[in-house]
């Protein structure tokens, strides 16, 4: 389990990194925390000709408030920093609740926020979180920079809207809307494993207590983070009674997801868990939005 030969660059500025990306493009892989990439290389499942290591670029490791009341997280910010950030706990409680589910402390010490987003593992929590909250990804290259909405960023299995010369440098999290509630529910085989199924829920209740803008995003049940639009449609404009939530959860399981089978869970079991977790997440999120303690 040794990787094949590769060239290694460790730029100390973003400009230098973007220059290297422009030169090597398709043949290059960006090394962030290395928690997925290094294992993949050691298994010889990936054999990049060039590694561009971002670990020596300090400006990519930041957590800042935004003018809109949200947060900006630099791509090289370690999971542990996000987990322990008071700003995140205050402005992005759903993210705060999500972080402990990401692997183990050892992995969270090395793994990075941007790395997880760019890797786009369909079983990972952060891509689903980012879709639930309508986050945006900052992609930079020598050609310039652009903000990509999470809904447009994740395009398939381990694939994103990034161009070969682009690097994810930051992620922008909007402020929590007024009268909103959230919930994160996950089931995994062992503590710290990739989710069999996890759901990130964010919704708003209007003045009459009816659901508005329901964002229910799943991981582990598709080729990327799956946004449950059919379930959201069931809830839209409805007061979230137990019956309505049950109906929405059932639609999420039947219409929104198309889970795969693997050695840990069959498609049928995953679909069943989508139903159970959607119900739990919607119930908790609605309660939070209504100002109840959860």
């Amino acid at each position: 389990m040794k990787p094949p030969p590769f060239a290694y660059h460790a730029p100390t500025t973003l400009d230098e990194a973007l220059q290297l990306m422009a030169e090597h493009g398709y043949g290059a892989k960006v090394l962030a925390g290395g928690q997925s990439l290094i294992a993949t290389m050691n298994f010889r499942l990936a054999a990049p000709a060039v590694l561009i290591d971002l670990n020596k670029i300090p400006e990519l490791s930041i957590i800042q408030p935004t003018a809109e009341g949200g947060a900006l997280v630099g791509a090289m910010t370690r999971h542990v920093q996000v987990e322990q950030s008071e700003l995140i706990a205050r402005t992005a409680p759903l993210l705060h609740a999500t972080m402990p589910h990401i692997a183990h402390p050892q992995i969270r010490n090395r793994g990075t926020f941007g790395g997880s987003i760019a890797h786009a593992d369909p079983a990972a929590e952060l891509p689903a979180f980012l879709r639930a909250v309508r986050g945006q990804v900052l992609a930079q290259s020598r050609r310039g920079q652009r903000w990509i909405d999470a809904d447009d960023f994740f395009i398939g299995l381990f694939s994103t809207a990034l161009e070969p010369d682009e690097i994810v440098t930051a992620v922008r999290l909007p402020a929590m809307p007024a009268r909103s509630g959230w919930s994160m529910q996950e089931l995994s085989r062992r503590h710290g494993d990739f989710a069999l199924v996890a759901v990130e829920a964010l919704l708003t209740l209007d003045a009459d207590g009816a659901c508005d803008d329901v964002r229910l995003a799943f991981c582990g049940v598709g080729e990327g983070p799956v946004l449950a639009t059919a379930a959201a449609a069931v809830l839209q404009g409805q007061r979230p009674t137990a019956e309505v939530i049950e109906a929405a959860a059932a639609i999420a399981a039947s219409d929104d997801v198309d889970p795969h089978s693997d050695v840990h869970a069959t498609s049928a079991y995953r679909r069943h868990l989508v139903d159970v977790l959607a119900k739990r997440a919607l119930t908790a999120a609605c309660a939070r939005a209504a100002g109840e303690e959860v």
Partner: protein
Amino acid sequence: MSKRYIGQRIKRNEDPALLTGQALFTDDVHLPGMLHVAFVRSDYAHGRIRSIDASYAREMPGVVAVYTAADLGAYWRPGPPLVSPPPVKGAIFNARTQVPLAKDKVRHVGEAIVMIVAESRYIAEDAVEQVFVDIEALPAVVDLEKALAPDAILIHEDLDSNLAAYIFQQKGDYESARAQADVVIKRRLYYDHGIAAAMENRGIVATWDAKTQRLTMWDTTQAPVVIRNGMAAMLGLSESQVRVIAPFIGGGFGPKIMMFYPEEVLLPWASMQLQRPIKWIEDRRENFFATTHERDQIHWAEIALTKEGRVLGFKDEFIHDTGAYDPYGLTVPINSQCTLLGCYDVPNYASEFKVVFTNKTLVTPYRGAGRQHGVFVMERMLDIAARQLGIDRAEIRRRNFIPPDKFPYNNELIYQDFVPLVYDSGNYEPALDKALEMIGYEQFISEEQPRLRAEGRHVGIGVVTYVEGTGIGPYEGARVQVESTGKVNVSTGIGTQGQGHFTSFAQVVADQLGVSPRDVHLVTGDTDQFHWGTGTFASRGAVVAGNAINAAAAAVRRKILAMASRELEAPEEDLELVDGVVRDKKNPEFAIALKDLAAKANPLRGAVRPGTEPGLEATDYFGPERGVTANGVHAMILEVDPETAMIKILKYVAVHDCGTVLNPLIVDGQVQGGIAQGIGNAFYEKIVYDDNGQLLTASFMDYLLPTSMEVPSLDIGHETTPSPLNPLGTKGTGEAGAIPVGPLFAQAVEDALAEYDLEVLEIPLSPNRLFELLQSKNKDA
């Protein structure tokens, strides 16, 4: 001999080195000019090798040698059968042993085909990708039952079928017992035991020194002496020319006593060919394919009882998967067959098994070594009987226990040590009572469970028992020497893989010689230090090596007393050995230090008496006539979420009886580690092969070991029923914890989900499998 240290919970002598990273493991051996090895392994489970083109690899810079089966010449030969079949009448056994490198045919995924030797492991792995092996794929034999179908493709084409072995054993007359029974229950049960997944993978460093004409080999083996003797024979060397060192080893659990692995045969030979040191460290992926597994059995069981729940007879037929070859004989299925009857006085038993070859990695013992399978079958059948007869689960066990006055108890079956299985001693009811008390059985069933169920929670309790035949022969030996420093050296040939031998054996010596265990230095697993012994397996270290060390230390004690008696001019019976001195019990000021005695026993000048042996040293051996039987009871309270099929262990207790306990801290650790592996086996770990014989669970992402988050705190209790078969009264404990966890899980899950009326007849479970069982009940309803 006083028992000052035996039985004490003292911290381990070896831990400072282990915990500070100072202990030597095989991969820590770095020699100048050392070469590195990687293997080209089969991607196919079954196929014919048409051709091998290694020409590109041979020309790569940094590649030193490339060997195929053809390149080995006369050195290529199948491995020797390691364990011969037991002497059972009517037994069938077809020995087909593993080969160093596949020739003509591959029989499991991961079988080694080509060995690459290079200046670094990186280069060696690059070269692996440049070897092209053309294999004509054959259908893979994966399913146990289909393996014996008349049209099944043959794995070993010189045989008539894929049958590797057949054994029938019985005691009493099952059919007449059945005729008298009030109730007869039949079930098909499936038990799959996963892989050991030791923290340290296998590894070998071999170096041939032409100047001294000696081969030195560091090997992660549980049996260094046997490896030395075998290597000498294979390489045409004398045994004294080969030194095998089994240094610290990060877990053995059985697979590291498979002999000989292809890599063990190849590395020393290549070192002699190339005249350079050579290293191979198995990586984790290889470990899944190339280190032996334990795996599945299918049982068709039948139990015959009176309506009071007394077992009159038991009948069992099973199929056992041995993988592509069967060098380890029938140890695993024999253990299943012989352990099934457990703690119970069952007068009539008929059991037959078939062993089948499949296109999978070889099966050899892994902690428990087939005992799990037998215990699962009996415990599950008792649970089903208890439910059917309306008898409490603990009570049906109590009613069938072998009473204490029936020991020694002869089960009449030929055991893995080739002699009839006779339980030496045991007292089962106190262990059950203690476990029930520790878990709060009565209170849970009468109060807590109804209360929690009323709250909508699904909680269940389980209680199971087991015996473990341990401490089998043939023998171990040891040399004990008091140095002129006053320190004590002990050498033994048994290997060590984390069992605490450096401490528990030191405690035995310390009590014999009146020294501190910290002053006893143990060498184990270096054949230059001691070259007699068989190895660490079958929970035999404390029993066989422990008693050998005790015997050698007792012999040294006799020498000390005789010599001190002369020096102090006092009769031996008046002397005692305390704190490193020999002294007169009545006049403690009349004393001589052991170090001074040791110096006097090895004079530099002057005459000694005829027949005198120098030094305070003795070598002795212990060979038990048969094994000794440990036992225990485990109980657990578990909660299931029927919506998600996820489980949570709320409480776990284990009561264990391994006779005299040398060090309770170490025994607790053994039991805990075993239970952790048992929990993995019951709910997390599963080896999955697809229909083509491809292993789908070849990484820790897919093969799920329980972590500290999944293993709860355990309460461990001890009962002590010393064995009459050895002076220390010890019984083995290494495997015990792992054995009964499967049926315990099954029982507790059934109880937690009582309203669903499930019957769990298989292990491992998983959330997915529980979901399926629950769904089938929902559909029934």
